[in-house]
């Protein structure tokens, strides 16, 4: 695949992901969009009303804000490393390409 064709397909992929993630908000209007686990927890208690969790989390985010902070931190750490690599490999590929053209000129 040449560079131009690839970047077109990359853009299409990103658009498709945005549509996939965004469309439920329109399709399932008025839904709660809670975690799937909350529904699972309710299902467990429906099946076994006498069940009680035998452990609780050691630390819990002090509020929804702190929780989103930690999730953002997780995503930021991951994105940082991913894009460090992206930059590194892109730069290296460019340097190699420049080196090759320089060789040809000589």
């Amino acid at each position, binding site marked *: 695949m040449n560079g131009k064709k690839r970047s077109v397909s*990359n853009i299409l992929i990103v658009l498709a992901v945005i549509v996939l993630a965004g469309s439920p908000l329109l399709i*399932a209007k008025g839904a709660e969009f809670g975690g*799937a686990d909350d529904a699972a927890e*309710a299902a*467990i208690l429906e099946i076994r009303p006498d069940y009680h969790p*035998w452990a*609780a989390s050691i630390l819990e985010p002090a509020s929804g804000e702190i929780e989103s902070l930690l999730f953002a931190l997780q995503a930021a750490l991951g994105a940082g490393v991913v894009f460090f690599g992206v930059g590194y*490999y892109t730069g290296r590929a460019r340097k190699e390409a420049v080196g090759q053209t320089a060789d040809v000129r000589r």
Partner: protein
Amino acid sequence: MVFAARKACRHPRSLKAPAQVARHLHPSGVVLPPRVLKNSPPPRRNLTARAKVAGKGGIVTHHKKAAVILAALAAGAVPAYSMHIMEGFLPPAWAAIWALPSIALFLFGASRIAAIMRENPKAKLLLAMAGAFCFVLSALKIPSVTGSCSHPTGVGLGAILFGPLPMVVLGAIVLVFQALLLAHGGFTTLGANVFSMAIVGPFVSYGVYKGLKILKVKTPVAVFLAAALGDLLTYVATSLQLAAAYPDPSGGFGASFIKFGSIFALTQIPLAISEGLLTVLAFNFIADKAADELAGLPALEKVGSR
């Protein structure tokens, strides 16, 4: 050991807002996590289930002292959503059953990573990127057509690049991060969650990728299906684990599996497609710019890197 202390009622909300917390009371005296209080009104199913148990008249009394101490320690704590099995929600026997294979494969995975570092030091950055890809994707809680949210796992990329074993370790790191800091998943359920996300997921992705390459399917298609199916089957595995631990009183395992499957796996379908697409994006980049590193990877040497 730690668990004994944590058994106690420990949701300080119960002291702060007794009216709100009423629906989280459980007959055992354990206060259920007031997850749903956070931003939005709780999903209806939740409300009814909790109202039911609360109705049975459990009031927290015997753990009061512990609650006060813990409340002082963690004022206002609210547990997080989690798409994995929640802390304490798997009976001890099942927790142990899932922990054993997870521990074994974790050790194999760790030695595999050590071998990759030794034999293929150039691939270190790629390995870090594969782990980081998991970190990013599993932090993104994405809405789904079922009206609830879940997150992708991101383990497919690394499984395709490095084989499934290293991903057992990388996936487990993500799960520990979330269990420790985010009350997302848990330590008692870590074995089960590692099994579904960091074992079933990567092995399915790797198997699908290899199988499709043998059938001469084009690489991007193989990568897409590998990552999407790995993601989807992770949540099918979660549903199986819950169904095995909680068979329906009347319908048995099957009825339970359908119930949990419709919660976890159905929600996951659009997310699995997204994960497949994003994995193709990442893989294309790596195949394009890091072909040298790819060529040396054991997972790809037989089928070629492109």
